């Protein structure tokens, strides 16, 4: 069960893993700002030329989807599991 050991290895060092991930995210946005590396010729709108635009879209979109959906669900869409039982 090598795979389980690998997962446990990473879980034991969760803080380091998270730090590495944050560094990668920062690098990703920085690279997006370098025109020589990321050619934005095919972008369709001006906002896409803002470095890190899609990062913001992803993060904000995710937060909005979660919050709005849960709000919608708690309006009365989510029911107890036995709702349809006689």
């Amino acid at each position, binding site marked *: *069960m090598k*795979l*389980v050991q690998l*997962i446990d290895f990473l879980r034991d060092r969760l803080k380091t893993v998270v730090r590495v991930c944050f560094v*990668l*995210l920062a690098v*990703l*946005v920085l*690279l*997006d700002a370098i025109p020589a*590396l*990321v*050619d*934005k*010729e*095919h*972008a*369709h*709108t001006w906002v*896409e030329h803002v470095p*890190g*635009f*899609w*990062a*913001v*879209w*992803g*993060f*904000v*979109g*995710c*937060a909005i*989807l*979660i*919050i*709005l*959906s*849960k709000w*919608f*669900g708690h309006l*009365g*869409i*989510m*029911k*107890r*599991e036995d*709702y*349809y039982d006689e």
Partner: protein
Amino acid sequence: MSNLWIHPALILIFGGLLLPAVPARLKKGWLLLVPLLVFLRVFSMAKGVFGVVHFLDWTLTFGRVDSLSAIFGYIMSLTCIIGTLYGLHVKEDAQHAAAWFYVAGSLGVIFAGDFLTLFLFWELMAFSSVFLVWFRRRPESLAAGYRYLLVHVAGGVALLAGMVLHHQATGSWDFVTFDVHHPTLAVWLVLIGFLLNAAVPPLHAWLPDAYAEGTFNGSVFLSAFTTKTAVYALCRGFPGMEILVPLGVIMALYGVVYAVLENDCRRLLAYHIISQVGYMVAGVGLGTQMAINGACAHAFAHILYKGLLFMGCGAVLHMTGQSKFTELGGLYKKMPWVFVFTLIGGLSISAFPLFSGFVSKSMIVSAGFEEHKLWVGFLLMLASVGTFLHTGLKVPYFIWFGKNHCKQETWDRAAEPPWNMNAAMIVASALCIFIGCYTPYLYRMLPYPDVAGEFHPYASYHVSETLQLLLFTAVGFFLLIKKLTPEPTISLDTDWFYRMGGRIFLWFAKKPIQFVDTCVGEVYRVLGLIPLMISARLAGKFDDRVIDGAVDGLAAAVRGIGGRLRFVQRGQMQENLALAFAVAAALMVIFLFAYNAFAR
């Protein structure tokens, strides 16, 4: 060239009918051989029009093979191999036969050149797929199956009405592109029939209802065939139909919103079918060559990764007996490889670079941007966020990590699944990665290969855009994970109307109608019964002497016949239905085969 053109659906139908006759030790070989033959048959088919049968006044075309039907036929028959391999250890022949008839229906629709043939196979799909739900044999599955059938029969009626009206107006049964800019009532009715099978809201609630109730392997089939066959039909009949663009975008977001609320992993995946089919429907609505390419490519990729996801969650259900997040968690210690396969499916559906969704979904989004429909592009990107949020993050996290909600019994049962389930998941995973890495494989099969050849998904901007979008979604997920904690609830959807509508009908039947019935009974007793008693007494005398003798003899005969009939009729309604369908299918096959072979 040989005159005999063998329809791939025929191989499946014969294979399924012969299945009970195959000796037990050869069964597994047969189960692998038949889908493999079907795949080879589809793969080797030349382009053209075949299997034209003149029947009464009609001309039925069973084999229209062009680039559009070929790519759908290819992926459907490929999925049949993977799906059958996944359920190889299932002992019940009828389950395999139902799945094969279902695939046969789908292949029949795809290669049909006229509406009559299309309708025949369209109904075969509905009536065979419902057994994949019923075979789970829970009381809930029985009810869900009936609802599924009811909705599909209603859709079939709309389609049939549209077809007939269309025939009346044009005099032709040919299934070709409609005049989408001036739709008539007939066109709308056909469209409604197709949209119902594509699960476009508000005609979508049958999908999560039934797919979450299917057997562990039945849902793998269900996830692939009905909706994508409808996408094929839309690609064929309605490219460029404007209304499909907003409908598709609404679908894409609707599925995502409901997936946030969902507690059952297979229901969540079912809502994501709606979301992903939304991309395809929007692509059909855009109607440009790139968009149609995108719809076909995305259907192709989607069938594989969604099958893979249903296989992963099906494996959890099969091994633990649970599919709810609130009953699972921490399973990576017990089922690590199923986690890896499901994650590959999750990364593919989320369109991560190097995975299949990346090279297909982006075509539709780009087509939206290129048509200067910016809102389409941006909203579909938002739906992508939701896709990764649920299928890439929520499903793996709350099943394999997160808080362990497993009961001791669940935990003890959990283990890696049998070899054949793993093998099917390996094949599907490998294909997902292969499609993502080697684009010509998929792009060459598309209806407009030249346009596809000019599309470069691995342009630096597109990779950067996608990675930012998805990785920052992950940040959002882990920051808001508390809000996402699954709750043991169900979500009301448009099926509420017919589920509660049915109940209102029952209430009417029970209360007011029964009341009226009682009143009528009372009136009848007072006004009718007393005179009746008098006349009865007179009749009784006559009866005693004359009729008894004759009737006694007759009654004995009737009882004898009744006893024999009861022997045939006992058993459940489903068994009777199964028998009826099997007989009908067999008759149909024999009939068509005879026609194919001898009519010319």
